């Protein structure tokens, strides 16, 4: 399982890449995509949606089930990855390239985990 060092992670298995001091992009981790299985549909948030940390922001569907995606930090959605609408499988094949949405006016990012802490967290989840 990959956990790139330059990213931050949430306990609900989203990753965060900080683009600037006020902007970040969010996706699902390698652990999440593996647990979900083959993804077949992504329901992206609308532009200007207010993301509240730890609350549902959008959802993804695997063959088996629908799963909520939680906002790992607060902010406002200013861009969504429309490429995923026709190619949700990119989340499986390239989880850290397949960002879901981008936020600006970000806050509440202090308690996100670094790569080592997240890898250790996944280890406990798996057992």
């Amino acid at each position, binding site marked *: 399982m990959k956990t790139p060092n330059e990213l931050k992670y949430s306990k609900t298995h989203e990753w965060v890449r900080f683009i600037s001091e006020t902007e970040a992009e969010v996706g699902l981790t390698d652990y999440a995509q593996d647990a979900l299985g083959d993804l077949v549909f992504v329901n992206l948030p609308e532009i200007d949606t207010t993301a509240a940390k730890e609350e549902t922001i959008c959802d993804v*569907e695997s063959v*088996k*089930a*629908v799963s909520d995606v939680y906002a790992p930090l607060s902010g406002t959605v200013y861009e969504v990855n429309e490429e995923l609408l026709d190619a949700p499988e990119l989340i499986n094949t390239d989880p850290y390239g397949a960002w879901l949405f981008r936020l600006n006016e970000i806050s509440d990012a202090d308690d996100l985990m670094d790569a080592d802490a997240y890898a250790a967290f996944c280890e406990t989840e798996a057992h």
Partner: protein
Amino acid sequence: MTFKTPLYEEHVALDGRIVDFAGYFLPVQYPTGVIKEHMAVREKAGLFDVSHMGEVTFKGKDALANLNYILTNDYTNLKIGRVRYGEMCYEDGGCVDDLIVYRRGEEDFFVVVNASNRFKDVEWMKAHLKGEVEFEDVSDSYAEIALQGPLSGEILGKYTELPQKYYSFIDTEILGRKVMVSQTGYTGEYGFEIYCAPEDAPLIWRELLKDERVTPCGLGSRDTLRLEASMPLYGHEMDETISPLETGLDFGVKMNKDFIGRDAIAARHNRHRIGIRITGRGIAREHSDVFINDQLIGHTTSGTHCPYLKGAYAMALVNEAYEPGTKVEVDVRGRRIEGEVTALPFYKRER
């Protein structure tokens, strides 16, 4: 209490994702993934552990009469070596289970039932036995392996003769082990089901997997395959509140004979099973309300993304037999998505 099938260790060795299904530990998928497992069955061959299925036998002078009374179908003219589908109903026409009947002799029948209904079925069958019949639950004496897909005959044919007709079976041997092989399955594809002694199952399983054209498949693809082929599943398209005619299983219901539930089935036919292709964005799952122009017409019973057809499909139980092309809306977690009524089955293999 959750049971392990005789192939449990094989699933673990193949890194299957194990879940508790109908009281059995079974793999929902292997690392291959549901979509590739599904496509393997449509294009090559997939191997399934279906040892959780229940098996019972009816033997004796009145075995046939018992089956004809307890089940909706008529087995009188079922030839030895052939298989026939049927439902078992309550007096009120609701469904106890659906099953398939193998005729092994004039007075010897082997019946395969759903794992989740096994104990309920056995109780129901026992309670309605009459005349000279020996009934036995032999579920624990059989493992069952399904090899499904266009190449399944060529692959299994390396080891044994094969039953040549759909819904026929033979007694034979694989690797020197006694087996019963039928040309049956639950994928909508050409394929075979192998019944063997539990202790012989790992040997046969491993041997078939030596052929690199064979992909081990889990419960996830078993469900997407049966839904894509529009085969009803107990607990979804059938249950104790749904009559077999409402499910659209007319071919398995013979009204010209006496059987439990007949009068009730004849008297009620208020609902119909239809197919829906989702044309909007999203996936309709089970228990979603279905509307036409804001009028609630029923609910979905199963739904998912169908990998071979590359789209979202659902089956629904609704108030009328709507024509294909009829526009509908399905409520998916508070959001209405568009769909249209589509003829069943969604997928039918070319013969």
